[in-house]
């Protein structure tokens, strides 16, 4: 009884301390200081969703896509393959969610990646590394990255050998690294297939690209049959969003958009 109370008290104190620390960190960050983001996590969930629940560490996924994933999250050390349209944007938004506020992200084999779109999607440039991975040392470089970073993104231009892909998966599993790959040469734990449903916002000589509807199908380990979700990617703030319901979509023809804050 007494110990339980004590623990409760301790946890409460811990969360209070974190909140105070978070406030200090935020004000330091505003002035360009280097910050430690663990303290920035909201105190409402002192035990983060990246907690160990006996099934390994779970990594968050973008909220509109949660229905696609078993248990609504990704296991650290697992692998996701992406196929079809919008693979680059989808890779980026999955990487952003999984990297969260602490892990590093490495992107290999995407020479034509739009870096501004990566930052618009929410990737922290301070925790992002790009590896061309085109030399002789490619297997070693990729394994070093798989050992060290939290999220490893493998682009479609890598042209991996199946043996290298399998060995990378093995390494990633032991190092708890999430592997996101576009069109990998072998099986992955989960496969997402996206089909573009069309763009909106652009007319004939007027307007601008605003959003694209995507239909994403998931299949693989832990998913019976397949699951489907419809999302907007990209949309006006560059991130992934759920398709709004029909009622909210009926908007006046002319509407001023709220000013969009640029990513720092």
């Amino acid at each position, binding site marked *: 009884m007494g110990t339980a109370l004590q623990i409760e008290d301790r946890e409460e104190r811990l969360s209070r301390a974190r909140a105070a620390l978070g406030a200090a960190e935020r004000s330091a960050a505003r002035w360009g200081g280097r910050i*430690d*983001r663990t303290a920035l996590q909201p105190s409402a969930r002192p035990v983060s969703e990246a907690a160990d629940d006996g099934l390994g560490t779970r990594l968050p996924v973008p909220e509109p896509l949660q229905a696609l994933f078993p248990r609504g999250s990704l296991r650290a050390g697992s692998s996701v393959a992406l196929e079809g349209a919008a693979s680059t944007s989808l890779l980026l938004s999955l990487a952003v969610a999984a990297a969260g506020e602490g892990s590093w992200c*490495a992107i290999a084999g995407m020479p034509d990646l739009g870096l501004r779109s990566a930052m618009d999607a929410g990737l922290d440039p301070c925790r992002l590394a790009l590896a061309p991975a085109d030399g002789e040392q490619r297997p070693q470089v990729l394994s070093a990255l798989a050992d060290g970073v939290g999220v490893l993104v493998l682009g479609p231009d890598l042209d991996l050998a199946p043996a290298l892909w399998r060995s990378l998966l093995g390494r990633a599993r032991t190092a708890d690294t999430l592997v996101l790959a576009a069109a990998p040469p072998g099986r992955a734990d989960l496969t997402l297939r996206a089909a573009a449903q069309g763009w909106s916002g652009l007319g004939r000589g007027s307007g601008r690209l605003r959003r694209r509807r995507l239909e994403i199908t998931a299949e693989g380990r832990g998913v019976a049959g397949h699951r489907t979700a419809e999302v907007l990617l990209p949309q006006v703030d560059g991130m992934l969003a759920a398709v709004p319901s029909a009622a909210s979509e009926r908007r006046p023809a002319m509407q001023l958009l709220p000013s969009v804050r640029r990513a720092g």
Partner: protein
Amino acid sequence: MMSAPALTPAAAARATRTVAVTVPEWPLLAALDRHQRRLEAEDAPAPDLAADPVILLDLHRVTHAGTAALDAGVRPGMTRRAARAACPEALVLEADREHETALFELVAAAVDTIAAGVDVLRPGVLLMSARGPARHQGGEGALAERILDAVAELTGWDCAVGIADGPFAALLASGPGRIVREGRSAEYLAPHSIQALRSAPVGPGWGHRGQPSAARPERRLDLAETVDLLQRLGIGTLGDLAALPSAAVADRFGPDVATLHLLARGLEPAPPAAHHPTQPLLAETTLETPLVRTDQAAFIARPLAEQLHALLVERGLVCTRLRIVARTEGGEETERTWRHDGALTVADVVDRIRWQCDGWITRARLGGPATGAITRIGLHPLQLAPAGENAPALWGSAGEAAQRASRALARAQGLAGEEAVQVPVPVGGRLLADEVALMPWRSERPARREGPWPGSLPRPVPATVFRVPPAVQLEDAAGRPVVVTARALLSGAPTRLIVPAPGAPALQRAGLRAGSGYQVLAHSAPVVLDERWWARDGRRAARLQLVVQGASTEEIAVLALSRAGEWTLEGLYD
């Protein structure tokens, strides 16, 4: 840089008080050292190298010869055959520049114990600023003595020290071991023969530090040629050269000889740069009783690992690659290199020493190649990183991820070069490819160019931005090419997008194959980019967002850019 001291007399009057430390005949010493080590490794009796004639060859020409060889008639510049004929019993060695440089780091490190920061000019010669160290040691004479002692004590070689204003005078003064009084460098230099220019401490482009000049790779003046030219012009001494007006020298001979002129006047083109060489780290133990049983290894491993750890902690370093070398009774050396993703702790090192010794002992017991008992174990840390970057954060665990990642990235860079890991740096620009630059990880970041950038693209931006923009053609309904007029209007509504040549693989994947046309479903109004309109190199460009129907009837959105009537694809919304 070169002409600045010449132009401002106030600056010209002040050349840095410089110490030059030279080891005479350094290439010969380094080659002999290597030869001796090889003999020791083979357990051959070391000959008396001081008395025997020695010849050093580089590119089949004699570059240095020992006194005995010189007495026998060997001269620098001879071919191997001629030198052999002059002195048949001489020991002939090949020059190894890398070894010379590596070995000279020992001398540099020894000098660094006396004065912080030395500038290694080339193997055998180093420069440093004299003022601070001289005040610390209580005078320039005392400083020179301390340097001589330190080098002799720590490396066993004799060196020569000269102190003067400016690097050239200091270098020449180091031969006779003199200290030239302040402000007297020009006088000291004047009587020297123009031949002394051959050893001038000249900058990049002249083979300084073994690197060719990046600025003028095609024109590397040969010092010997220059000296020859000056001699033919009747300039016999450095004083003659210094007496020429500097503007005339620069006009007639160009900036390289102007630098030499500057040096001959006792001035300096740049003050010595400071760098801190380090003594190579090594933890070694000689076993009194040779190692024959596995359990003995564990006892030896711990103190050795702790010794290494103390060495590293003292220098604020962590080791991520370690070579363990063992020497057996038979004189055989076996080594193995261990990598570790993280910093190697004492326990890690102990484990590795034990594993390795186990392996050897077991192999010997199983009747492998006879190695004999182990008598000496050495630890050589190969890959060192500053501990500061790996130190845990003050609170929380976020430091851990960064620590792990930075080690992985360092590893990748170590494997495949600096360019193997790049980080994005927002620099600002109008075009998508210019907005964010990619820099090698841990390199200097370019400064951000402050905007505003009128015409930069609002969100959403294309997820694929072509590094090499593929050329495309836009046609209107009548089949005429679409252009953007001077008033920023389209000449006609685009209806077809044609990809003429196979371009980026991303384009192929999206379903825009080369050699076919695609129907344009929607397009925006052109947005004009007036790049640098105020400058001569300013250009106008126009951007157009397009939605085209791909081969699989999927809608594909692209961003097209028109420049001088030619269309390219800047990005792909994929």
